[in-house]
């Protein structure tokens, strides 16, 4: 069996499962946020449930409208808060002790290898980086899980992605997943499990692995997963005292497809409008003026992302005419970034940085969300968003102010499926070429 099949079989109480099997599984952690929880709570109440199945196995995280953008979004946060108090939900974290759900749960040690996590958020697949099975569902499914601790799943076929070779400088997890999305397409992983493997993955940090697993859903995948190794165990040991179920795929496991990717030639990748799979290597991007760049989200709001950005921006300035917004993914990351001087470096460069989480601030301030680089998400069909890794491309030289887009917004998140680019300074915009 594959690692995904082994975790599913264990949670279904079965010795063996195969792709296509319909199984009922027990859930180790059920997750929702301030957008999806209110609907799930409504379902929970409508079916007549009185108590959640286990208040220690539910996480309700206010992170989408933080701070609440209007009265309605405050009502949603209130509904979730009151439910959490009433049900004594152990993992409800109030604003101020919180962060983006998919950054926060691993940080707090709430997910460990072998767990089965179901969340009412598409990027729940992030926890596959820890060797857990994790997948997104809607609010009705989540409401029933909160009542019963169980759900049904169809065992997915697995596509194995093997990364071999040596990464070029400034190429990392974000580039690998964007490159992979370019290969698979926006629905190339629909209903499937993506298993990221090979020596290149073994050398990636946890932060970069989270970025890769997080974006598995951008190919439509049910889950993305990376087998636990020493890096995983070291990360988990510092955060959880629970005993993990560590497993890997059998050598004779059945895969729907095995894709070998030689990474030696993979350049930094940029996803162009309007899909995360519409990627180009940096050398083919050309000159694009960047109006706004964003670093953050559940994909790229982690400490390593901020460190990379600070490395690039030290002693440099954001170009005149470009706005750079940085939002650390959790309170802990923000605090650490202050201690390390990262926040000061970014501020000195002319970036604005504050701790809020997902779309709220940018909707409010710029009518644009750091979410998927779907043009629809911005509410402005003329916006163009691109996605890159957080060190952007600031390693550029000559700067030009050419623009092919009416309004170019770049992000280093998924939640931006666009990318971003910082700049260096000649004061005149920036270019995205190395």
């Amino acid at each position, binding site marked *: 069996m594959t690692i995904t099949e082994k975790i599913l079989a264990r949670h279904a109480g079965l010795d063996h499962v195969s792709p296509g099997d319909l199984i009922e599984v027990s859930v180790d952690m059920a997750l929702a946020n301030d957008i999806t929880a209110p609907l799930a709570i409504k379902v929970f109440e409508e079916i007549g449930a009185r108590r959640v199945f286990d208040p220690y196995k539910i996480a309700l995280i206010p992170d989408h409208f933080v701070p609440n953008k209007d009265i309605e979004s405050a009502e*949603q946060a209130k509904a979730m808060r009151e439910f959490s108090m009433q049900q004594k939900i152990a993992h409800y974290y109030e604003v101020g002790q919180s962060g983006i759900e998919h950054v926060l749960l691993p940080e707090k040690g709430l997910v460990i290898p072998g767990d089965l996590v179901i969340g009412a958020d598409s990027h729940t697949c992030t926890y596959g980086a820890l060797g857990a099975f994790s997948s997104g569902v809607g609010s009705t499914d989540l409401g029933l899980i909160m009542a019963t601790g169980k759900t049904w799943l169809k065992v997915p076929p697995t596509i194995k992605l093997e990364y071999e070779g040596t990464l070029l400088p400034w190429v990392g997890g974000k580039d690998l997943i964007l490159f992979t999305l370019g290969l698979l397409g926006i629905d190339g992983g629909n209903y499937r499990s993506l298993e990221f493997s090979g020596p290149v993955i073994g050398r990636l940090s946890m932060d970069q692995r989270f970025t890769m697993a997080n974006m598995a859903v951008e190919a439509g995948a049910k889950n993305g997963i990376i087998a636990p190794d020493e890096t995983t165990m070291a990360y988990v040991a510092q955060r959880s005292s629970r005993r993990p179920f560590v497993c890997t795929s059998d050598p004779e496991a059945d895969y729907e497809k095995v894709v070998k990717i030689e990474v030696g030639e993979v350049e930094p990748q940029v996803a162009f409008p309007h899909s995360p799979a519409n990627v180009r290597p940096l050398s083919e991007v050309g000159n694009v003026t960047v109006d706004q760049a964003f670093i953050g989200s559940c994909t790229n709001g982690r400490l390593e992302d901020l460190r990379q950005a600070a490395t690039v921006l030290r002693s440099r300035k954001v170009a005149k005419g470009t706005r750079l917004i940085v939002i650390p993914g959790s309170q802990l990351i923000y605090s650490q970034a202050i201690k390390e001087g990262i926040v000061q470096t970014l501020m000195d460069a002319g970036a604005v940085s504050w701790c809020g989480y997902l779309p709220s601030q940018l909707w409010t301030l710029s009518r644009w969300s750091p979410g998927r680089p779907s043009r629809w998400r911005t509410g402005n069909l003329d916006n163009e968003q691109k996605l890159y890794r957080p060190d952007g491309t600031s390693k550029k030289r000559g700067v030009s102010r050419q623009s092919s887009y009416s309004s170019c917004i770049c992000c280093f998140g998924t939640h931006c499926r666009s990318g971003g680019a910082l700049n260096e300074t000649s004061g005149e915009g920036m270019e995205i070429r190395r």
Partner: protein
Amino acid sequence: MKLLGKVWKFGDNVDTDLIIPARFLNVWDENELAKNCFTDLRPDFVTTISPGDIIVAGENFGCGSSREHAPLAIKSAGISGIIAKSFARIFYRNAFNIGLPILECKEASGNIEEGNRVSVDLATGEIGNLDTGHQFFAKPIPDFMREIVEAGGLVEYVKKKGLAEQAI
């Protein structure tokens, strides 16, 4: 269960932000959500459709986020069902859970135009284009999923079957 309605045609990769933009997710009342269904792409969609109309789309309909608000907005706007070449995984599950029937049929998607009148028999998977006389066959919806749709969604289904008491 049979559907009969006028067709509204969409392309490939219609994502959840297109169906109901994230900025409108500050409410969870389905009638409020319906007001902004497809608002960025077709601002007059909600006011021009008639109850029972049907959406016909291309590949990967409903990709993007997990928001159940997307199928809820479509259903509450008055759409009775969706035919597409394929659906994104989470949307597929959500649609049945809230009682919105959806069918995968590549031939139908390719041979039905906006404005055509279409009939759908969920039990047999038969799709008829009443304007051209063409017939297409989607894979029938499994019985238990049709029961969920006929009950009005998973909540009603669970209540009707008495599963709630067993499970809680």
